[in-house]
């Protein structure tokens, strides 16, 4: 068929982007999915602006009239806690001339005044003033229009994690999160007061497709190949016990050690595209949560407490990642172009931890997660080198989504049962399995959101 309005040319059919034939043991992704500019526009519209995306934490606007700004796809949004203490999610655009209303990252305001013609809105988004309205000789039809800020169609909170959808045609938030919400519980339950963002947001870009980050967070196969320089430093630090270097959580863990034997981690896949990549980590003082280890065991039982100390990389499709490994990081993926992505990152921490635990968490974070640290740059450079290789060529299909298929089982396993989580699929792995079968979960959810926009 031809390229009708809103559709890309027929050469980019869904089955030419994702080759998903479970009965034959085939799951392949085409290079085009990371490269094609027209496809990228459709992704913004249908993946990011057509369904639930993560927009922030409720603690970013804690008090009445606190607000912060974010984006849903290309649309600037404003999340405001109104004077009644209720969070609202608004389109951050003045309805008059389309000017972005609030430009700062965060603040406190009971009124938002557009800089262009002074239309004024309250912290619920209601229009409180149209300048010189009575002299404006408006028609009766104008009087009948809604002059408030646009409301984002769906907005919801799960234990402090805020999600929004510009499309009203989405499942309820709890259904969207499904069983993966229990992994959010596991993170939040580490403190009776929940989680907060450590002050200091770090942003970086990389010149590659957003799905490279989506995959890398769940990629158990890359660690020893991509990060040997960091691993070498971990080993040296562990051997020396020097006072001035930070203790690393990963040093004591087996899940990535090539010599380790037995089940040491694995993956879980959930409905709507969410995945967990996890590994066993011991309960030691290298983890800042150690100060609460006994309290957590008493409150939640030893098995659940031990899970709180495991390495857990959780992706809530399509743009949120909660990485608990070397430290604890909240990442928001923001696609800017087919070959350019912005990452917004924070250290996320249990409220009320001691100053010593907080400092340890921060030090562990900086060395590993920052674009100025010793691990993330080796990831992002690999994404960029992959983007170079995404150029159209004779063999369109990548071979990077194949490991673990024979180990992938429907439902959960003994480890997921410990925390009462029922995934759609799971893999229980030794350290060298390096599961890639969980990527199917991303691309099937991707295909679901893109279904109306692609042929095939």
């Amino acid at each position, binding site marked *: 068929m031809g390229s009708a309005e809103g559709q890309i040319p027929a050469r980019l059919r869904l089955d030419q982007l994702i080759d998903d034939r479970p009965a034959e043991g085939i799951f392949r992704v085409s290079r085009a999915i990371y490269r094609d500019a027209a496809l990228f526009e459709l992704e913004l519209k249908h993946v990011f602006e057509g369904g639930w995306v993560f927009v922030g934490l409720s603690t970013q606007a804690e008090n009445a009239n606190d607000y912060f700004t974010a984006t849903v796809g290309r649309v600037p949004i404003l999340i405001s806690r109104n004077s009644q203490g209720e969070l609202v999610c608004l389109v951050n655009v003045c309805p008059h001339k389309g000017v972005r209303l609030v430009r700062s990252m965060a603040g406190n305001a009971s009124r938002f005044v557009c800089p262009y013609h002074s239309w004024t809105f309250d912290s619920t988004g209601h229009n409180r003033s149209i300048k010189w309205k009575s002299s404006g000789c408006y028609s009766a039809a104008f009087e009948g229009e809604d002059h408030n800020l646009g409301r984002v169609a769906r907005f919801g909170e799960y234990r402090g994690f805020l999600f929004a959808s510009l499309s009203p045609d989405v499942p309820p938030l709890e259904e969207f999160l499904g069983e993966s919400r229990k992994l959010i519980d596991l993170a939040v339950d580490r403190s009776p007061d929940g989680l907060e963002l*450590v002050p200091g*947001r770090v942003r970086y870009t990389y010149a590659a497709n957003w799905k490279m980050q989506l995959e890398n967070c769940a990629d158990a196969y890359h660690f020893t190949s991509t990060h040997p*320089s960091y691993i070498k*430093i971990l080993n040296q630090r562990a051997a020396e016990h020097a006072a001035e270097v930070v203790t690393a959580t990963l040093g004591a863990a087996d899940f990535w050690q090539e010599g380790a034997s037995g089940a040491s981690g694995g993956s879980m896949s959930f409905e709507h595209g969410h995945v967990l990549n996890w590994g066993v980590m011991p309960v030691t003082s290298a983890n800042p949560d150690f100060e609460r280890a006994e309290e957590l065991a008493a409150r939640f039982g030893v098995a659940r407490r031990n899970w709180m100390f495991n390495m857990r990389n959780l992706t809530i499709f399509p743009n949120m990642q909660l990485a608990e490994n070397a430290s604890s990081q909240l990442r928001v993926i923001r696609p800017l172009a087919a070959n350019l992505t912005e990452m917004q990152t924070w250290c996320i921490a249990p409220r009320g931890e001691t100053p010593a635990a907080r400092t340890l968490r*921060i030090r562990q974070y*900086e060395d590993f997660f920052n674009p100025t640290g*010793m691990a993330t740059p080796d990831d992002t450079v690999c994404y*960029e080198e992959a983007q170079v290789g995404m150029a159209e060529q004779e063999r369109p299909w990548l071979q990077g989504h194949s490991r673990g298929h024979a180990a992938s089982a429907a439902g959960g396993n003994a480890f997921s049962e410990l925390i009462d989580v029922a995934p759609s699929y799971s893999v229980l792995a030794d350290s060298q399995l390096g599961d890639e079968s969980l990527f199917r979960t991303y691309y099937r959810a991707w295909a679901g959101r893109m279904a109306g926009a692609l042929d095939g």
Partner: protein
Amino acid sequence: MDSPSPADAARFLYREAALLDGGDFESWVDLYTPDCVFWMPAWRDDGTQTSDPDSELSLIYYRGRRNLEDRVRRIRSGLSVASAVLPRVCHLIGNVIAEPPVGPTQKVHSVFNVHVQDVRTCRTHVYFGSYEHVLEVEEGRWRIARKVIHLLNDIVPTALDVYAI
């Protein structure tokens, strides 16, 4: 040895920059005291940087030269793809203001521009901001006891290492 004159302080800063530009990272690390602080804060909001490294996030925070040695070891390791093709860098330092010395220590303020040619991607970047150096006389020569890098860039393009700030 006396505390440095403002002109001496400026020359010392230029020397540090030249060692980074020339890729002599071992001599660069040797400029620091064993218990030095090397700190690049992050941005707390649009207008203020984080100011307490123990309770707020920094881009880089080290207490102890040993950590800078780790950074150099990683750059030299041959095991870091981000360090495999080293970018070419050129530091420009200006507006050097040396505060009056306090005992054996001297605080020096300056601003910097670092131009970077990322050879791997053929991209150029500029990093800019200000430095605060606290210099100490140790064994008859100046050492850096504390360096704070106030980076004004808000978004790091892919990666930023110690030689480009």
